[in-house]
């Protein structure tokens, strides 16, 4: 999910500290081209390592911050069944964050460091989670649209050239297979319900549609690191390709629900079989990335609060472990 290439704009590549010979680079690329997996301790170009750390940690942060908008409705879920399902889903997000942090840690960066970068605003997370969940229908829309978009992105990542990332993604994709369906089911239930519930469902689609399209990141012409990531087989499809695929599968689902996609330019191009969609408001995207979305501050404050409130707990556990170790010695 959530590998929008968020902080690619204005990113300057630091020169590698270690000399990397043309021979080494060529041998590395040959392994990639042969579809060999790169493992943690294998030689790799510094830029490859850095790209992965950035992408995987961004992905992990997105999972963790992503717990908040859905967590917002856990205490108010309208039935015990829905409460249990939503809780299992939010828990999965914590688990997926954990798998991803672990994958990034194999590249020599600590989770502490990654979390510190997030809290300092140096690391990004997916822009989608800076939008508020205002009604129960938003929980349906997130599962249906946001997880739907995430799956588009994540399935190819299961074949990513970096072994630990690919393995984490296999596990994540397997576990997430119920996430989108539970979201669609919520929408279905609402659209079969009262007029108020139908309006709630339409309102949620209207608010989440465009932010979901933005999840795939900037248009290919503005996404300058894409080519290198494709060559390294970290990425398998471009942002625009994935976005198109998402629109193509999602529009018929909206029609099935009897909901209107909020795009007057949307139409099926019979020749290509693809839907043409209207212009994305990239200004909104960059505003949200810059910290000015509806919930950026709230999300970060909550994360910072949990981190700070937990400090004494983490310290106590270490102090206890140290005492036990001293006793055993």
């Amino acid at each position, binding site marked *: 999910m959530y590998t929008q290439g968020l902080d690619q704009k204005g990113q300057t590549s630091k020169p590698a500290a270690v000399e990397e010979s043309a021979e080494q680079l060529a041998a590395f690329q040959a392994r990639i081209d042969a579809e060999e997996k790169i493992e943690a301790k294998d030689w790799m170009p510094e830029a490859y390592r850095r790209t992965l750390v950035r992408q995987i940690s961004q992905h992990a942060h997105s999972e*963790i911050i992503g*717990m*908040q908008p859905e*967590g917002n409705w*856990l*205490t*108010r879920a*309208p*039935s*015990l*069944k*829905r*409460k*249990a399902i939503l*809780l*299992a889903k*939010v*828990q999965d997000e*914590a*688990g997926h*964050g*954990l798998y991803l*942090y672990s994958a990034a840690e194999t590249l020599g960066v600590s*989770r502490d460091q990654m979390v510190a970068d997030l809290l300092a605003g140096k690391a990004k997370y997916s822009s989608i989670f800076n939008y508020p969940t205002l009604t*129960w229908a938003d929980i349906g829309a997130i599962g249906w649209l946001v997880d739907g978009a995430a799956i588009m992105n994540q399935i190819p990542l299961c074949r990513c050239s970096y072994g630990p990332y690919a393995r984490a993604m296999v596990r994540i994709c397997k576990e997430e297979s119920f996430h989108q369906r539970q979201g669609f089911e*919520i929408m279905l*239930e*609402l659209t079969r*319900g*009262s007029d*108020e*519930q139908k309006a709630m469902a339409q309102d949620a689609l209207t608010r989440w549609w465009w932010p979901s399209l933005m999840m795939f990141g900037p248009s290919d012409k503005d996404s300058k690191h894409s080519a290198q990531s494709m060559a390294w087989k970290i990425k398998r499809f471009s942002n625009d390709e994935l976005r198109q695929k998402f629109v193509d599968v999602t529009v018929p689902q909206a029609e099935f629900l009897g909901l209107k996609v909020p795009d007057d330019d949307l139409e099926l191009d019979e020749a290509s079989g693809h839907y043409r969609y209207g212009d994305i408001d990239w200004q909104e995207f960059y505003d949200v990335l810059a910290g000015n979305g509806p919930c950026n501050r709230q999300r970060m404050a*909550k994360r910072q*609060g*949990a981190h700070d*409130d*937990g*400090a*004494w*707990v*983490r*310290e*106590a*556990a270490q*102090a*206890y*472990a140290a*005492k036990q170790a001293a006793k055993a010695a």
Partner: protein
Amino acid sequence: MNADEALLTYVLRVADNALITGQRMIERVAGEAELEEELANANFALDYIGQARMLYTYAGELEGEGRSEDDFAYLRDTQEFRNFLLAEQPNGHFGDAIVRQFLFESFYLLQLEALADSRDKRLAEIAARAEKEIRYHLRHAAQWLVRLGDGTDESHARVARSLAEQWRYTGEFFAGDEVDSILQSEFRGPDLDALREQWLANVTEVLEEATLAVPGETFMATGGRQGLHTEHLGFLIAEMQHLQRAYPGASW
């Protein structure tokens, strides 16, 4: 009160404890000290919600008026809930949550062990299943209590305070009434006097390991099982039931 009425009331009490405990755990989501504890907390909450669902469903069958699990959870008002006062207390910090979980589950596990041997077959089955879950919870809570009690000066002071604050709600576990008596005599339910002794012994053992003193005799607050709750429960219920109340009869 006849045996059937007592059984129904008893099942609802156990269910309410599970639901309210689970709901408080859910409030903690995305606020844990470490990521791994998020997974643990969610597992615990899922276990409790699952137990509540099984018990409410059974209560509906016992009552025979067609009430579903959600009718019990979402359409009773605050004073109809019969959970312990301890369960509804606000979360506070991680140490408060651990102390509450430890004190309650030290009781709940013994209760479930006894119920697993009950003459009422359905209740015994549900209890046997829940017992496995709570055994793991309690182990987790006890280990954390030891780490916090015997951790840093700060953590020790914090959980000592949590313990002093919450101890007064433990008397209610053992303040049996007619329902408990009937359950014991007719359905081979728990013997609360025996449970109290066992509970105190188990709790004392862990508190000692945690370098915490067992609180002395103190005033014990009761009322939960008569529906006389603290002010905190009303807000929990209002939040939980919001959608069902705002859109009566809607299906979600």
